[in-house]
């Protein structure tokens, strides 16, 4: 039974990783948001399974929090923003998707190597997944670096938050509740501020292309 359940956590972890790669190569803004919501769902699934096995009740609450925030509320807000900004059907030109994929694979290998010495200490059922969490974190960084539009950068930022949350579940039995609530509040306020920003950027530059934001450079 336990083996099966720990396989289930691994399955969710694998889904997260695949979704991280999918986001890296996705050009359509609206699909990107769908992928993000799906990734949130994978985190919720993994957290619920861990909660069920370990009888840690606060993990149910944090799974619920993630479900509300990352699967419903934030994607909903993002949909509204892209609707109002009229970038719903935007397609970003991404260069060198194959190169990005190869760099991504390199990052995954790196992440597994870094977490190898720590993962064996983890006493949770999900010990193998710390490497995946770190890999997802690094893939989200990569996504933020390579994207030139504001919305995909924000989605990258949020995917990073998902990866961190997943790391907390897989390395320990989740962070203390008060910390988790604080983090959720920060994420929510952050996304609201980002929304305000996108409108300001649009108003000022008449586009959401971050490449306009490259004036401040050292001479």
């Amino acid at each position, binding site marked *: 039974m336990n083996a099966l359940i720990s396989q289930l956590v691994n399955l969710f972890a694998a889904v997260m990783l695949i979704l991280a790669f999918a986001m890296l190569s996705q050009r359509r803004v609206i699909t990107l948001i769908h992928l993000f919501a799906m990734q949130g769902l994978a985190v919720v699934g993994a957290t619920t399974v861990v909660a069920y096995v370990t009888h840690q009740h606060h993990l149910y609450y944090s799974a619920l929090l993630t479900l509300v925030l990352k699967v419903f509320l934030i994607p909903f807000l993002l949909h509204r923003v892209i609707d109002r900004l009229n970038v719903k059907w935007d397609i970003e030109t991404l260069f060198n998707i194959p190169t990005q994929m190869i760099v991504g694979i390199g990052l995954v290998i790196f992440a597994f190597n870094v977490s190898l010495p720590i993962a064996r*200490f983890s006493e949770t059922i999900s010990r193998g997944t710390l490497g995946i969490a770190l890999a997802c974190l690094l893939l989200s960084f990569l996504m933020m670096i390579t994207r030139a539009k504001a919305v995909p950068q924000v989605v990258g930022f949020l995917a990073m938050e998902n990866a961190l949350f997943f790391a907390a579940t897989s390395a320990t039995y989740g962070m203390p509740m008060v*910390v988790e609530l*604080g983090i959720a509040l920060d994420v929510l306020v952050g996304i609201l501020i980002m929304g305000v920003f996108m409108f300001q950027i649009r108003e000022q530059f008449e586009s959401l292309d971050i490449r306009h934001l490259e004036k401040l450079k050292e001479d």
Partner: protein
Amino acid sequence: MDPLFLVFVVPLLGGFVLAACGHRPYARDVNVVFSSGTLLAAVWLTVRVVAGGPMFALDQLFFIDPLNVFLVALTAFVGLTTAIFSRPYMRVEEDKGKMTPKRMRLYHSMYQFFSFTMLVALTTNNLGILWVAMEAATLTTVLLVSVYRTPASLEAAWKYFILCGVGIAQALFGTILLYMAAERVIPQGSDALLWTNLAAVKAHLDPTILSIAFVFLLLGYGTKVGLVPVHNWLPDAHAEGPTPISAVLSGLLLNVALYAVLRCKVLTDGALGPAFAGNLMLGFGLLSVVAAAFFLSRQRDVKRMFAYSSIEHMGLMTFAFGMGGPVANFAGLLHMTVHSLIKSAIFFAVGHATQKAGSQIMDDIRGLIKVSPTVGWGLMLGSLAILGMPPFGVFASEFLILTTAMRQEPWATPFLLLALGVAFAAVFGRVQPMVFGATELKPLAHPPALLPVFLHLGLGLMLGLYIPPYLSDWYQQAARLIGG
């Protein structure tokens, strides 16, 4: 009422009150009143701690010990003087049409919330809350950096948001690893992130996990300290936001971030011995000092120049704490204090000067001594102080850092001296014509607030000549706490 509560409840309340009335003309004074209230609470807290030693509040969630009490007092003090400075400064900005009533409301309210987040970060015992408060400090200031809505300020704010967001995410990963290490030693769940509990068992924490955790924590919080190579957000955010915000970012927020690194360093040292964390901090610190000195010499914008000077000084402090030992830690803490006093004084003077000249480009600012002798002297003395001229306090701390470096890390001394020399030539060469050159600038409509400038410089001078015994006692206790 417990002063430990008051110290962050007052600014929290102030944030809400000013969110309601921040656009009215009297909001400037309300802002000062709340900041004074915070300072009074901080003074009361300090007196209590001096009399009764470390204390806890709210089920150990908050605590105060020799390391954070002096930073709380400093934060509350600079918070008040900056609020006083911002009264005439923001009035001029309003007259120029750069600030609308709506933006003033945002500014005042966020100013108080920003103080609140910093004070929570300083007083919390829970490393998770520390992270939450650091992130919240970014969130409260990011809208202030872009408050003028110019293309450059939007760019700076976006960069600030994204880079600090990425940085702080690494710190959260580090915190998670730390929690993981702690859970193996401290069984009862939520107490395992309390710093005091961790410090009690630090020798038993797993060294492998702690080493990886500290790398992430240093990179993460180091982004907010402004350590090279993760410093890119700092000069932009300092240059494009309103000057009072540059003053508190430089004088306070960087200190709070360094404080977070120090708390983590104590735990890492316990598990791994002082070499690991110390060497990392030495490396990043030295790199920041040297790189910032060379960037500094190429700036044309006065606020950018002093922003790079902040990177240089934060690097110097990181270097000092990296060396460790009672003298270097003492010097690092002293440098934290005098740097935040002097640097905010400089930003006050620079703020008035740029308003006079209507430009932040140094070539446009000339002859301050004729237009407004006090601002001119404030800028000149401030620059001399920050460059480490005796008898100011920066000289004392830099002297201690350098002499300790000669003993403990002799290889690093030439680099430090070179960097300090380059910075001196660059800053002095720029400031001299700004103060003494020929000019046709006109005086300002609202008289500048000079009390904060000279109060800070006076305190910086006093710390160079004479450190009161209870203060030096305090530094020594704090230095011992971080492993002196």
